[in-house]
């Protein structure tokens, strides 16, 4: 059994505190959504933070909060998923190198640009000598961390710290927008479902969790199962993956009370969610959340944060409702996500 005993989220919403998050959606009309910056001085000395980009600082803050909630000092493993790594430092070093013709380069941005910086800095901060992994596989990055953590618990470990972290930069956003991935114009996040054009809303965020073998009074929820699949051919393949996922998890489709989907405002991608719901969960209440966070490789970690908090508090924010199907009880939540129809995943969350 795998329980979520601590969570923390920094996103474009007030998610560091769930009660504050519930107060209402923060509206944006922007090219891409950026995480709200906490007051870093409250959390770390400027000299300690001198080389850290936003993602690294946010990773440290969220890891601390999640560990504190779970009352864990040193986890048995630290596992981070990040699709892009530390884009800001990567760009900084790359641009200095290209603009100065390989001269007068300094090491800091290069060192910080390494994909495993967040996991490494957390280990350094808490002096954790245990297993330390970083997954960098686009829309499977965070899911790989979850799979790994579950295996650790099956192997007898107690507390695993996992996180999903991604940041977006102006330059990388601009380059990827050319590729048609993001919307061509500024996006109004509260109107996300009304767009009929292709291109998603872009965002970023950092979400951390402590997964534990032991259930506590204040556990958020249980992670029952997870599965990833790559480039499905059509909706039949997705539906059949769902069937085998539910079979393996030993749960009936009718026992799913709520489905969290990853609508991004991208017409082609959202059709996959709509078909999925219609063909499998026609009468079930459903939520969405990427109007809050934007799309990014590890956005599914925000869905896990949302689902875990819903199961713990039994409060469902209105601004996440995708339809008005009545909600009688919430015991089992299915999270379905896909990243540009390349990386698909299911996570089954249950009341602890």
């Amino acid at each position, binding site marked *: 059994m795998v329980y979520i005993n601590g969570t923390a989220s920094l996103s474009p919403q007030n998610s560091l505190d769930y009660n504050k998050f519930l107060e209402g959606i923060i509206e944006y009309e922007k090219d891409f959504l950026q995480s709200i910056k906490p007051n870093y001085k409250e959390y770390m000395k400027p000299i300690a933070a001198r*080389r850290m980009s936003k993602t690294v600082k946010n990773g440290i803050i969220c890891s601390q909060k999640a560990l504190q909630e779970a009352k864990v000092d040193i986890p048995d493993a*630290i596992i981070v998923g990040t*699709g*892009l*790594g530390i884009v800001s430092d990567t760009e900084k*070093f*790359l*641009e200095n*190198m*290209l603009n100065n*013709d*390989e001269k007068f*380069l*300094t*090491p800091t941005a*290069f*060192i*910080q*640009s*390494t*994909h*495993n*910086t967040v*996991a*490494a*800095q957390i*280990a*350094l901060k808490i*002096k*954790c*000598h*245990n*297993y*330390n*992994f*970083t*997954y*960098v*596989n*686009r829309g*499977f*990055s965070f899911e*790989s961390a979850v*799979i*790994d953590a579950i*295996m650790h618990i*099956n*192997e007898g470990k107690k507390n695993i710290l996992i996180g999903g972290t991604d940041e977006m930069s102006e*330059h990388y956003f*601009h*380059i*990827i927008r*050319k*590729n048609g991935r993001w919307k061509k114009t500024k996006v109004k996040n509260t109107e996300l479902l009304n767009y009929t054009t292709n291109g998603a809303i872009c965002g970023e965020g950092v979400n951390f969790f402590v997964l534990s073998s032991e259930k506590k009074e204040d556990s958020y929820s249980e992670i029952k199962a997870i599965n*990833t*699949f*790559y*480039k499905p051919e059509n909706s039949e393949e997705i539906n059949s993956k769902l069937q085998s996922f539910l079979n393996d998890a030993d749960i009936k489709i009718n026992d799913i009370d709520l489905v969290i989907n990853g609508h991004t405002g991208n017409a082609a991608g959202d059709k996959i969610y709509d078909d999925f719901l219609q063909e499998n969960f026609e009468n079930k209440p459903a939520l969405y959340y990427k109007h809050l966070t934007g799309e990014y*490789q590890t956005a599914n970690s925000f869905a896990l944060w949302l689902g875990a908090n819903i199961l713990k508090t039994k409060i469902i924010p209105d601004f996440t409702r995708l339809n008005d199907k009545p909600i009688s009880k919430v015991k089992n939540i299915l999270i379905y996500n896909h990243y540009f129809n*390349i990386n698909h995943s299911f996570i089954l969350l249950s009341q602890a």
Partner: protein
Amino acid sequence: MIYITGIGAISAIGNNVSENLHSLKNKITGIGKIKYLETNYKDEIPVGEVKMSDNELITALSLNKERAFTRTALFGIKAAKEAVDNAGITDINKYKTGIISATTVSGMGSSEKYYQKFLHTDFANDFIKTHEAADHTEKIADYLGIKEFMTTISTACSSSANAMMLGARLINNGILDRVIVGGADALSKFTLNGFNTLMILDREPCKPFDKERKGLNLGEGAAFLVLESEKVVNEEGKKPLAILSGYANANDAYHQTATSPEGYGPFLAMSNALKNAQLSVDNINYINVHGTGTENNDLSEGKALKKIFNNKVPKFSSTKAYTGHTLAVAGSLEAIYSILSIQNKIIFPNLRFENSIEDLNLIPETKLIENIEIEHILSNSFGFGGNGTSLVISKVR
């Protein structure tokens, strides 16, 4: 039991496993003047480049020239295909099969060529999509037809050792029956300049574990292995090449780039790997050390070796004097070299070693040793962020 049933490699000393073996046996180094990488340091910094151009690789693999293949993806496809063929696999999806690759910069070599055009002009091409680390893994998976499971690991220089460890755990946890594991990294101007700012690149071919060592040489390539469960090996009646009998990852938690003076992280990785393999230090016949040739690594690793082996360190050598430091590839490439050692009953020499480090008095093997029975090999990979992994590779009994 995790069986290794196929291997494939491309590096500065050969475009396949048998060419690598030939170079290792004949003391042929791959370190030399830069030929393919475009950089101002062409004549100043020696590296271990793969001796094939991108176009030659595309032709050799009969790939569609219209698609965007980074050099990293090309290396990966080449080595992974060799491993799958070597394992005698004809139907990749007959068993639950996954792929785990590892990389440090994946498509950076292409990104840095187009970056300014992408950013400042209207120009666009498919290399916009190849920057993310997963790109090369997807290219390999698509080439081999793997759909069941995929991920990519990036933990600096221990990345592909970690891919092997994860692969073994996925089989042990019953999630997969078979998994193609390894890593791919092509040299990039970004990496070369990055390591140059750290002032740890030797201007001459490197001298691992030597008193006068001046730093490392960067290398490139890819190395993949096929791991299979007992069930698959039995059902297929296969003769495995070796066993992945132990593994452990530990963190030094000392500094973002440097290893602690006493090598605590490396010590932990090695001792936990031995524990995992249920072996004692006396069982280890040879160590393929990380041995990059930097002042910091070799000293810390040496101290950790002495501590764990109670000053009776077994035969050891670093093969990075042949290949250069292939970063994310080093772990799986050196695991393949370890298998070659076991199969051929040989130990590869540590090229260019002259005098031992004063504080250590450790002397690596400097000649090719032949006709030596090897049961168990320890293979080390340590990287940035204090990330360290040790693997135990064993002979099939």
